[in-house]
């Protein structure tokens, strides 16, 4: 059974069709890249999956319909995401950001928290330990107490990635995690993505514009253009698909590259 299956997903804002009958399924442990030109509807698709937008069509997580659930309920089922522009809590430290990302996994109640009862203390220590494993995985040790707003952009993107990991998700939605990163930071990110794929067996939907990275890492590519699926398949097949090249580069350029 597919970990995440989307069928006939459509989304309209007034007269504008953002997504038009999009379907795809991601198998457990699969790394699927979602690509397409600007405005193709990639982020909208992620927003539909995480419940921020309401489209029509079915969205199934391990067979169960999640299309009608609220975003926080979907997150609790193990769907975590990063945001294109980070959207971090700038005034909180890296640790606090990650602990906030872990919210759904912490079970303390407010009355016990008021008194910081031993049960709360134990839970905080245990979750701190779990957070430290993630900090260790993405190599953020030296920044753990720093307020996120004061960190360089590249590090902030990694914090956003780590905050999503903190939920201990089974499905990870990455919205352009490499945008604005330099070459070295991209290499680190690629390493982290491969580690969560292979070590944590995570299912990943990954929006990306760096074709080199996608060709190297993705198991499968799904291409959107103007809200419609135009290609789906293995990276080498999809990236040489004429429709994809037209959508990305225009017709003229194809002739010059094939010449």
């Amino acid at each position, binding site marked *: 059974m597919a970990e995440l299956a989307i069928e006939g997903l459509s989304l309209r804002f007034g007269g504008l069709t953002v997504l038009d009958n999009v379907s795809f399924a991601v198998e457990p442990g699969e790394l699927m890249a979602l690509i397409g030109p600007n405005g193709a509807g990639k982020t909208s698709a992620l927003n539909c999956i*995480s*419940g*921020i937008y309401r489209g029509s069509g079915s969205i199934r997580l391990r067979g169960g319909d999640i299309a009608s659930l*609220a*975003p*926080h309920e979907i*997150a*609790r089922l193990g769907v*975590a*995401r990063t*945001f294109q522009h980070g*959207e971090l*809590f*700038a*005034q*909180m*430290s890296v640790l*606090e950001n990650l*602990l*906030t*990302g872990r*919210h*759904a996994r*912490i079970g*303390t109640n*407010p009355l016990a*928290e*008021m*008194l*910081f009862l031993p049960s*709360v*203390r134990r839970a*905080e*220590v245990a979750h*701190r*330990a779990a957070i*430290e494993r993630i900090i260790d995985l993405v190599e953020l040790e030296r*920044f753990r*107490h*720093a*307020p996120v707003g*004061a*960190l360089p952009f590249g590090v902030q993107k990694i914090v956003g990635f780590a*905050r999503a990991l903190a*939920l201990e998700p089974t499905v990870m939605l990455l919205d352009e995690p490499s945008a604005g990163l330099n070459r070295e930071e991209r290499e680190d990110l690629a390493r982290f993505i491969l580690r969560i794929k292979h070590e944590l067996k995570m299912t990943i939907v990954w929006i990306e514009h760096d074709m080199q990275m996608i060709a190297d890492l993705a198991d499968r590519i799904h291409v959107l253009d103007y809200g419609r699926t135009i290609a789906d398949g293995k990276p080498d097949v999809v990236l040489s698909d004429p429709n994809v090249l037209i959508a990305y580069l225009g017709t003229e350029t194809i002739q010059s590259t094939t010449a």
Partner: protein
Amino acid sequence: MFRPVPRASGYFRTDYAQDMALLQTRAERIGLAALVGVLVTLPFIATPFLLDLACQVFLASIGALSLMLLTGYAGQISLGHAGLIAAGAFTTGILTREINAPFWLTLPASALTGIVLGLVFGLPSLRLRGLYLAVSTLALHFIVIYLGGEYETKRGFSTGILIEKPSLGGFKLTDGRAWYFVLLIFAAATLLICINLLRSRSGRAWRAIHTRETVAEALGISISGYKLLAFVISSSMTSVAGCLFAYYRGFVSIEAFDLFLSIQYVAMIIIGGMGSLLGALLGATFVTIFPYAIEALLKLLPNVQKLAGDIFAVNYASFGVVMILFLVLEPLGLVGIWRRIQNYFLLWPFKYKPLASMRK
């Protein structure tokens, strides 16, 4: 959040529980002990006037801390806090007059009133934000004042409700010193509750909602649940302050809870510094003492007798000026000033702090 930067050199924590401790170094423990020492000895050397002032500061601190929790951390604006204090005070007043209820009954009853009001008036926050929410919380203030006024006239207490001093375990609380300690303990307990909430799951959820609701929700935080929780907790603590206020004054009347009181509470958290519990305490102290300070200053002027009628006007006006000055010159509030002083001494003889260790 309370200690972004290690402050002592050569001090290494070896487990996460140590990292979470509120007091970590010997200097901090000594500092707290000294503060407790000062607070305990103060009532034995202070004049009755100073004692009353301290009690007022403690009462204001409870209200300011709970408003800070709601506005400074959870990001929900409330102009209804005077109404909540009134609700607590009237609950206490009505219960003592009608069924002669003791302290141990009126206190939880006031808290319960606060919980109910918080729940009801938190509901608009699920749909409204910013100014619109502020206006909807104003309704809370007017409804409580209206109900209180109705009770006063219907029962013939049109000048206000007199409340007997409560007794705690056979000991009657009439002495100013005893009140000082009761209010100090309540204020300290409120502070501790706020600190504990803010360093655990709920506090993080509130701060996340404050920063970005959509993101917080996508992380698994129930927005409506935590907004209501913030309103409920803040309201019940404020109502408890109202209950204590009623007993302390021995008298409840709607005149004491005008809109200016709500403005004063908002002023406390702005002048103190948004998003800081220390700020709430500093703001409460500042705003409480301010009118007395202005009065004392006016008395230093020649021809005081002529000005006597204008003291109120001067007070209001200078309060407004101070608010504006803070908003323009020191948006971080008193706590911003305090941190600058602290940093100066921490860094001395150097002048600049490293970026990564910026203290929030």
